[in-house]
């Protein structure tokens, strides 16, 4: 049972890293980006291709997955996304669905639709058995890396100038702009980093979640759950929501496999029914 908890935490941490970019994009630009999963997929494929085709060691592919995806994000933000910030949510939904369709079929066309496999380095395979808990080495690795990222992000938000500029812009972009903050640059950097993190998450998750062109569609709802339940005003909100989701999903699939994802969806609806702004949002927030 504790093994389940451990696995759930690993899954949750991974979901957090995957979804945090989406939370910030929504909170900062008020943009519903359903294509976020495509960035995750991109990162996953970068890792897979580098490892399988070019023999790059796993650990080395991770920063490259982050950078590669961040670059894609940095290109798409001023080119496409920036034109749509003020538009109604319907337009944003249509646009991002369009991007997902393009990404999914594009990858299918270029690489094919079979699931991609990578071979983890030997030191990450297998598990430690400590009394009754089986601790998978890879899952432990994921928890450590994601926790470090979470802590790093929190530190950056509260201790760096960029962090306070970002927080100011999330609170009120017009005022922030009026104060002389270069809101465009902040948006660009934030979007790039958020996408990069998604890519990194996709790379880390390739082994656990499976990687094929349908990845963005399969997991889109999970990222959205993290963001809508966790809220977009804090970092801890999505983190807790992701952990909750990870544990609920793993436990649900183990104990009641017949119901599958049913439990997760029902839980989400109940939570949103009771607290439409999300479980952890500040009172008065939410758009």
């Amino acid at each position, binding site marked *: 049972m504790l093994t389940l908890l451990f696995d759930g935490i690993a899954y949750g941490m991974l979901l957090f890293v995957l979804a945090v970019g989406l939370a910030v994009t*929504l909170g900062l630009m008020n943009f519903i980006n359903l294509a976020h999963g495509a960035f995750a997929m991109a990162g996953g494929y970068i890792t897979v291709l580098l490892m399988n085709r070019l023999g790059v060691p796993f650990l080395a592919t991770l920063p490259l997955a982050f950078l590669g995806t961040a670059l894609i994000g940095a290109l798409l933000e001023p080119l496409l996304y920036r034109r749509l910030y003020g538009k109604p949510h319907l337009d944003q939904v249509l646009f991002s669905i369009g991007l997902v369709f393009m990404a999914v079929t594009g990858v299918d066309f270029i690489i094919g639709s079979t699931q991609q496999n990578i071979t983890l380095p030997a030191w990450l395979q297998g598990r430690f058995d400590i009394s009754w808990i089986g601790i998978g080495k890879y899952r432990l690795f994921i928890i450590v890396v994601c926790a470090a990222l979470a802590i790093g992000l929190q530190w950056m938000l509260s201790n760096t100038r960029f962090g306070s500029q970002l927080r100011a812009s999330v609170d009120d972009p017009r005022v922030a702009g009026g104060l002389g903050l270069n809101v465009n640059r902040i948006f660009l950097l934030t979007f790039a980093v958020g996408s990069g993190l998604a890519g990194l998450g996709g790379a880390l998750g390739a082994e656990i979640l499976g990687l094929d062109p349908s990845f963005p569609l399969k997991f889109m709802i999970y990222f959205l759950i993290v963001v809508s339940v966790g809220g977009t005003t804090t970092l801890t909100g999505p983190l807790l929501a992701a952990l909750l989701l990870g544990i609920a999903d793993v436990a649900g699939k183990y104990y009641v496999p017949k*119901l599958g994802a049913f439990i997760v969806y029902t839980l989400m*609806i109940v939570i949103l029914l009771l607290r439409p702004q999300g479980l952890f949002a500040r009172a008065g927030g939410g758009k």
Partner: protein
Amino acid sequence: MSAVAQALRAHARWRWWELATFAALVLSWLLLPGQSLLLNEIAILALFAVSLDLILGYSGIVSLGHAAFFGIGSYAAALFAKLVMPDPWVGMVVAIAVAALLGALCSVLILRGSDLTRLMVTLGVASILYELANKLDWLTGGADGLPGVVMGPLRTPFGAFEFDLGGRTAYAYTLFVLILCVLLARRLVHSPFGTSLQALRDNRLRAASIGLSVNARLVVVYTVAAAIAGAAGGLLAQTTGFASLDVFEFHRSAEVMLVLVIGGTGYLYGGIFGAIVFKLLHDLVSAWTPQYWNFWLGLFLVILVLVGREKLTRPWTWFGAKR
């Protein structure tokens, strides 16, 4: 009659193109018997899209899970025909009733919260139904679907007509339901109730501030839209003899939204025009690149939004002219 009274009346007057559309629909049945199967598909999609217009175009609710009602109507009609009786009219009433019930229940979920919350909740409901239909395979056939939905004859004042393989009876039946629903929806949108829907779409706060009960209206329109979507789903099951899981898929919800956007939201006929254009485009592009239809669809969506949705239904604005 004063100018003001006339102006008020003018909103609800029949336009020539509305009559032309209905005439064209009926003519298509008369003059294109060989295309009945394709036309039937278009008409079902049109009805589905019109139902979405009521909540999206007129009430401003962005739903990514409208397929939930389409799907439940489909399965309700299929199961009713297989397990109870194969009469299409009774089955249609059942499909509508079940979908309306589900709509009424789900309407509570969309009353509060932001656009994102509503998106999630509608998506969640459709996903739950998909999972349920998948897991309850002893009832629904699971991933294999529910084939062999054999319908009895369609009883009309002109006689009883069997559903023929060519789809002529099916298309006539579908057209009847489509036209009936559009006529009813038309009265709804021109009424004070319909105007109040648009008001709450434009400014919920002000709508309440002139004494309109926003929540009650949302519940009603959501239920009505669900009922009509259920009718479309029921038509699908009854006229194709088959019900399958894809009726609940996200793809269906996304597709119907796109169909409506192509045709234009907020004037009721966008669903019909959008369905025609969409299906024709689909057949055209699929013949050319069958696997990658989604890519072109995605590209179209991206360009559509970047250029501006309104431009699509106002070709005169394409080159900078102002209406």
